[in-house]
């Protein structure tokens, strides 16, 4: 019994809630920086680049698409929180 209580984690609901929303904020900030890079990098592509030049709108779509997965996992995680 004592071993099981050491192996499992039990936090106060307030702490769980605070950690959850901290995780959300951290991911939002990181995603903003990821998205910002699309706007910062595309205009400076050299015209003589050997590799294909991606279209900015397409690049934005690809960066935003995974956010759907993040939203889904955070919704699912919130519903599963032991509050």
């Amino acid at each position, binding site marked *: 019994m004592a071993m099981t209580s050491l192996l499992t984690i039990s936090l106060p609901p307030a702490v769980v809630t605070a950690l959850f929303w901290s995780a959300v904020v951290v991911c939002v900030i990181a995603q903003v920086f990821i998205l910002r*890079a699309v706007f910062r990098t595309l205009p400076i592509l050299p015209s003589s680049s050997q590799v294909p030049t991606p279209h900015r709108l397409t*690049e934005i779509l*690809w960066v935003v698409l995974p956010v759907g997965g993040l939203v*889904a996992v955070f919704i699912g*995680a919130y519903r599963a929180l032991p509050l």
Partner: protein
Amino acid sequence: MTGVALDPKKAEASLPRDLIALTKPRIISLLLVTAVAPMYAAGSPSLLTVLLVTIGGYLMAGGANAVNMYLDRDIDDVMARTRLRPIPSGRMSPIQVLAFGVACAVFATWMLAQFVNVLSAGLALAGFYFYVFIYTRWLKRSSPQNIVIGGAAGAFPPLVGWAAVTGTLDVTALCMFLIVFYWTPPHFWALALLKQVDYGRAKVPMAPLVWGERETMHQMVWYTVILIVLTLLPVLFGSFGTLYLLSAVVLNALLMGGVLKVLFAARASKPWIAPAWWVYKYSLLYLALLFLAMAVDRAITR
């Protein structure tokens, strides 16, 4: 190279070796860890189920890798890293490779659907289609987001393993999917930084060639941040316990340390190649140990 006549004796002698090479076994070994470990995290699978998922997973991923070699045969000939593959070296014809890849995928789908369940077969097949059509056929040659979105193909194995045991998917399985998804950019961009010349020669728009080295390194940091959050999230909703948490903290600290070392070295105009190699190799161990920690944690707390 594709017009070189095949030497029958040489081709026959190396055929088993080449067929295995088509499947990219070293890559698949990690995929199998991320498929089997979730099975033990999801429940108590029988050895037979584990064996079926292992064989089915190997054949499906191997088939996808073979079709990838068929579709990329033109650039494989150009890149030093891939020039010795069966097609560019003339040991196998393109149609042989394509047929082998498709046959593997068809058999794997049937085997998983017949002996495991339809959901795991469907998920494995979805991973195949994603890798072949979304990544290889479409994004690889058109966008620096190629390995980000295309990396989702490598994130299907945890779903396959979880579904094989539970017959369904839940938030823990989704977490596992996203962990592999967000692990992919720092892992592959470390390699892309090191092989820029090769990718440029093949006109593949990898991130360092489109965004520059420094921006790629910044992106590696941000994706690693989200990856770390995702690895710790399941602890919050009680999916994993202390053992997993401690393992994740240590593994994450090393990974982030490595990624930051690459960035800081570049910022200080110091050599960053060795740190980048370290990130690339360590990230393979990282993912395997993280998923093993999930399985062991669940086993001891069940």
